[in-house]
């Protein structure tokens, strides 16, 4: 089974030969890979070197936390890669951005109004949680489309609070 892993702009071709062997970019390596305690903690022995990482599904592929460094790893098998190539790389910087509550909390202030133009980095909303006021900022420029909450509202985690088009 052949996979292509992408980290930032680097591509690695990893082939699973059998339970204990892989190749990376053509080079054969001994591997012994196991999950620990039934948790998203993985132990890898790679040609004798011992590594341990936390691996979680992130929004952009897998998040691999290894030796205090976080890597966003996008993994595709050959078929997926071919399909995506055929589809012409339509990973659009798509339409709306929905600001979701990253944690439950209390909306303290919404310094923008519907219809406002915002720049990347502008504060969209102040959310109080864990005794701290957290400023949630625009990830890109756009127009405030719809504000679904009011100052004073309690919000649940992942609740959509406003949108930018």
């Amino acid at each position, binding site marked *: *089974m052949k*996979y292509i*892993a992408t*980290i930032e702009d*680097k591509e*690695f071709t*990893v082939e*699973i030969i059998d*339970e204990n062997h*892989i190749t*990376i970019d053509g080079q054969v*390596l001994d*591997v012994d*890979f*196991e*999950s620990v*305690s*039934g*948790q*998203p*903690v*993985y132990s*890898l022995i*790679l040609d004798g*070197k011992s*590594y341990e*990482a*936390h*691996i979680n599904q992130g929004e952009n*592929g*897998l998040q*691999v*936390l*290894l*030796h*205090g*460094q*976080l*890597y966003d*790893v*996008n*993994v595709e098998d050959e078929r997926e890669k071919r399909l995506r190539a055929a589809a012409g790389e339509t990973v659009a910087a798509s339409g709306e951005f929905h600001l979701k509550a*990253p*944690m*439950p*909390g209390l909306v*303290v202030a919404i310094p923008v109004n519907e219809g406002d133009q915002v720049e990347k980095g502008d504060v969209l909303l102040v959310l*109080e*949680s*864990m*005794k*701290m*006021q*957290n400023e949630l*900022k625009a990830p890109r420029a756009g127009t405030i489309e719809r504000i679904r909450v009011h100052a004073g509202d309690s919000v649940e*985690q992942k609740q959509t609070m406003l949108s930018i088009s």
Partner: protein
Amino acid sequence: MFKKVLVANRGEIAVRIIRACRELGVQTVAVYSEADRQALHVRYADEAYLLGAAPSRESYLRDDKIIDIARKCGADAIHPGYGFLAERDDFAQTCEEAHISFIGPKPSAIAAMGDKGVARATVTKAGVSVVPGTEDVGNLSDEDLLAVAPGIGFPLLIKATAGGGGKGMREVRSLGEMPDLIKAARREAEASFGNGNVYLEKLVEGARHIEIQILADQYGNVIHMGERECSLQRRHQKLLEEAPSPFINDNETLRQKMGQVAVKAAQAVEYVNAGTIEFLVDKDSNFYFLEMNTRLQVEHPITEMVTGIDIVKEQIRIARGRQLGYTQEDIKLNGSAIECRINAENPYNGFLPSTGRIEHSLLPTGPGVRVDTGVYPGFEITPYYDPMIAKLVVWGETRAQAILRMRRALAEYHIIGVHTNIPFHQTMMDSHRFMGGQYDTRFVEERFDMHELDANKAVNIDVAAIMGVLAAHAEAQRSAQIVRRNVRDTSNWKWVGRWERIHR
């Protein structure tokens, strides 16, 4: 000794205090909110009483209920920990009136030091230098503040008079941005302390935040226990502390001078029990009184580790009317200690707090490592309280040994279920400026970021790629397997196979 101590707090500090009581043979009483029924402090205490709903105002800030519980269960003392009611002179007063010992200073000392304006005036009178700022006491209006600001000069800080821990604090670079910032500071101060009063203080740039721990008994004996270096802060929240300070290092003259000034400041308010004097120290070793924390500090363990003295036990003994167990000559700093505050927050996403259930954890242990925590696998991190879930403290014979030990402890520490700032601390421990002790209060925000060490990242990038692929592959195999047959435990496909082989 006391028979029964009520701990009016939660989290790691409540556990810390319960442990001290246990080790003194004193009974303990926990109080808890609905969100904390399964918290460690409730599990570890001899008695436990429900205060109310999760929000602090309905539980841990309910001084009336707490006093009531203390009375009913026959507690003869209350330890307030830090935060919540710890610096409320009215609460200390109520305890006194109820004939319950408040394990902390007298109400008058809390009041004098609690209002930052009064504190500055008091210590100035005692001959201690303070950072330039509004000397006025009490409730300054927005107009007053705006009028006074240019005289102090920019940059300056708006600080909550009832404040602490960076709450209700804002930095001002110009008069123009000041009105909005005052509003924000007042709002936060109101929410955190129930008091929106603020004051102004000159921002000393390139400054270090160094504090002196003191202990004082009821007989006028006051000693200092050396300093803690607390300059590593983010949004005025301390993240990492060390003792001794690499800036003071072996400048014993400066240490003693600061210690003596700290003692003087404490004496100015007839201070009793454990307290901390915070100083700003500029590059030329001039130091200015910032404020006094009239309570146990979060970072007290590093002082315990270098002095060998259990500060919480000493607090309890002092409150019981005992003389200090140590004289100034007994205080010798031995080795070096570092504390990393482990917060439930995501260092890769603007340090946003992270809530959820702790699914699994593996604590670093072994020589020279101490973990103070109130959480455990299965415990739910709720959005109601402070994101600090643990303190990882190490001791080493030298600062270099302590750093190496902290690195291995951080690498061993696993917490699954919430994000933590462990990677932040790991990055810090690898930072050359930190290793060199070359940092000030602006370091974290201005000259440090999680991507600073991207060179390190390159070293293992191929390993990360391989692990990503193997995890994805295992997941795919697993899904396929579930379809094919009913496996008992699919979380660990290879291990199961091997285990079965061994047992054949």
